């Protein structure tokens, strides 16, 4: 169990990093509670958890991007409270991110040294010295490329090795890997793992965050599972099995959040997608969506769900396949024409794509429906106002009386209702929702689910993309699970099980 005597490394080495009772909340919503972890030099800690479990927040705290509200951290025996990322680097904590943080227009050598370049006696950058040191660091990560190569000409795997080289150059004692294998080929992955083994032998501590559980088992000495901001399991690798990890990650939660459905999907198909492919993005996507159906799309971040939505909506190109709405082929149409065919899309990022933040609630609601409320070139204001007011009441936006209040003053949940209301005014045949409840509080979530059901009751087909398996199970009639740009599994409502869905989304392949 926890303190079974054999732990020789724990006895001989005192932990390099020690976190205790870390807590953090944003706007009154607590995202981390009482998180505790310890890590010895030369060991690898696997950190797993569902999307939104608090992994990123914990890493941001370790990296000095945000500060904890509660708790304390010790690094190498002394207090560790980084205020900025640069300060964390100074302490010897380095990150290798999923989204790589290199300057693509600079050379490898420059990326390793920026912002403090070595200088010669004239005050210019000492390029020979920089080159020699870089070549040394590149040898340490087995990357056989000239230090003068521009980063933009490197593959994702090579860029990652450059990031690791940078960490080594900064004398990192702790390197944190955040989903490092998502964009690597299998050869590049093998090379990365060999490097991690070597770094371990050199006494560098590492935290490895990944959804690829077999990799976590292969690399890590210890594991820690986060769920809803709390540590729900931690211990040595051999105390865990894949099944146990998944059960811990998913947990059990209350289900009153989800309103009951009182309508059933109609038999007729409203949207048919067959063999949709775009090289490097999605492969052979086929499904049908019926009238009044809520079809969920599950998957991990980077599984290609948002990309699929963009292709369906005509924002990104697709190389082959067909999309029909009510029997009409739309795959060659522009986004505008697709909207005219009855397609609507609620984007993942409502701040940037879905809403005019400075415009009033009513203007935002009216935005996409304007053509329906014009006679000649002029807007029929009374008819529009009436429809907008009706919609605002129906989606229960809590705002000013005349809905003249700017959208940016609303809470996340109410903003999302404005976006939903905007599309509902058009009576879409198919509505694609991409993460509609991200950053939305529990109360507003429940109302958003109700609106979705209400819309389904009117006969629209709904494609519901979400990273939270919980809410997909609560709201959807059917589920597709995407993995690496393809559909990995399909589930009917009767067969919904958290474990199986998560198992299909993870890359463990053969069984959950």
């Amino acid at each position: 169990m926890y303190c079974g005597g054999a732990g020789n490394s724990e006895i001989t080495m005192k932990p390099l990093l020690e976190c205790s009772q870390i807590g953090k909340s944003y706007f009154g919503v607590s995202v981390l509670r009482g998180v505790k972890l310890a890590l010895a030099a030369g060991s690898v800690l696997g950190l797993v958890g569902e999307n939104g479990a608090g992994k990123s927040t914990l890493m941001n705290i370790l990296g000095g991007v945000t500060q904890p509200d509660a708790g304390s951290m010790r690094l190498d025996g002394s207090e560790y409270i980084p205020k900025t990322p640069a300060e964390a680097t100074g302490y010897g904590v380095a990150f290798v991110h999923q989204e790589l943080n290199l300057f693509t227009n600079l050379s490898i050598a420059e990326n390793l040294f920026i912002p403090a370049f070595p200088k010669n006696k004239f005050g210019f950058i000492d390029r020979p010295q920089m080159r020699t040191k870089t070549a040394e660091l590149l040898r340490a990560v087995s990357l056989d490329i000239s230090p003068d190569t521009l980063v933009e000409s490197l593959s994702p795997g090579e860029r990652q090795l450059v990031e690791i080289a940078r960490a080594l150059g900064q004398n990192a004692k702790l390197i944190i890997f955040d989903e490092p294998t998502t964009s690597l080929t299998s050869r590049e992955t093998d090379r990365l793992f060999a490097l991690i083994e070597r770094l371990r032998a050199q006494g560098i501590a590492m935290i490895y965050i990944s959804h690829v559980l077999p990799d976590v088992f292969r690399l890590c000495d210890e594991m820690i599972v986060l769920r809803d901001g709390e540590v729900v399991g931690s211990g040595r690798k051999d105390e865990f099995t894949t099944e146990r990890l998944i059960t811990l990650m998913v947990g059990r939660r209350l289900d009153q959040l989800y309103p009951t459905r009182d309508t059933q999907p109609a038999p007729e198909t409203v949207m048919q997608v067959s063999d949709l492919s775009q090289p490097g993005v999605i492969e052979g996507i086929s499904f049908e969506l019926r009238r009044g159906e809520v079809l969920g799309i599950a998957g991990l971040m980077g599984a290609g769900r948002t990309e699929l939505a963009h292709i369906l909506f005509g924002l990104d190109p697709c190389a082959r396949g067909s999309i029909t709405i009510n029997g009409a082929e739309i795959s060659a149409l522009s986004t505008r024409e697709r909207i005219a065919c009855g397609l609507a899309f609620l984007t993942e990022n409502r701040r940037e794509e879905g809403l005019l933040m400075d415009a009033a609630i009513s203007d935002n609601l009216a935005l996409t429906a304007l053509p329906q409320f014009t006679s000649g070139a002029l807007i029929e204001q009374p008819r529009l106002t009436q429809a907008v007011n009706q919609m605002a009441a129906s989606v229960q936006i809590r705002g000013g009386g005349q809905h003249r209040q700017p959208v940016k003053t609303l809470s996340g949940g109410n903003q999302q209702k404005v976006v939903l209301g905007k599309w509902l005014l058009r009576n879409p045949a198919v509505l694609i929702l991409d993460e509609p409840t991200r950053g939305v509080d529990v109360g507003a979530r429940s109302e958003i689910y109700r609106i979705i059901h209400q819309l389904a009751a009117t006969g629209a087909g709904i494609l519901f993309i979400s990273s939270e398996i919980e809410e997909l199970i609560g709201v959807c009639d059917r589920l597709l699970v995407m993995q690496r740009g393809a559909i990995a599994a399909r589930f009917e409502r009767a067969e919904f099980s958290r474990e199986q869905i998560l198992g299909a989304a993870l890359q463990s392949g053969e069984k959950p």
Partner: protein
Amino acid sequence: MTEKAVNNLSQAVLRHAAPLMFLVVLAVFSLLSPRFLAGNNFLNILIQSASTAIVATGMTFVLLTAGIDLSVGSVMFVSAAVAGKMVLGGQPLWLACAAILLTGMLSGAFNALCITWLRIVPFIVTLATLYFGRGLGLWLTETRAMNLPESILRIGSARIAGIPFPVLMLGIVVLAAHLVLTRTSFGRQIYAMGNDADAARKAGIRTNRIQFAVYVISGFCAALGGLVSIAQLGAVSPSFGNQREFAAIAAAVLGGVSLFGGRGSVLPGTLLGALLIQTIENGLVIANADPYLYPLVMSAIIFLAVLLDSLRNQQLRRSQRRIIRPSQKPSHG
């Protein structure tokens, strides 16, 4: 594979657009007029392009941070007006020259303060100072042309070690800028900031200082370009430096500096761009083209420059699109 070859070719053409266009322009004009190829015509082109090239060099610093400085033409005018007033008022020439450069740097510092401290968008700030500078200059000169003493013209036509004064100034500015951009921390930090300002801040680069410095440099170069121009013209007219911002931006962008930041160079980049523009103008004169054609040709050049930049940028974004299925990717090395 053929698609890949076409892709590689178009990439190469886009990357080396400036030298390729330079060759085309040389070929066309030398066919149109034999006088074009005469030896001292090239020296003329170099002398005539000096002022714009110096202004464009300062502009390059700003563009590399993904900013823009529309005020350079007006800064040229204001600083020249201040200096003209001083010279006509009996002040010594060296003091007037120092005043030109100081006025330029102060104008740049004003732009920089608005951008870094008040957080106003560079486009709007410098658009405002464009009008403000022109207005201030007209008020100072009472909208009359100022004819300056002979001594100034003597500087303009002087030769130092056989090199004409404007060319010498151009050489110094371009070399210094090239060294700063490629060999100093400051220079490389400018590039990093233009690539990703957020990442630069996270990496510990003081982006505010960088931004401040580039606008001061741009103001200084604008004033110095003005100084070279006065020395060549011997007078400051109310339209002095008018629309010079367009020539400067066009020169930089034609030479491969990106309006989106982080890409381009002074040497050969901006210098080549400025020479290209001057060569075309020179060629038009020698080929006896209709003078009303000049602005049309000029606008076509600016359009072409921005189009090239946009195409380069699209290609870059396409090559950086996120790959979800790595197995589908064409193998790399």
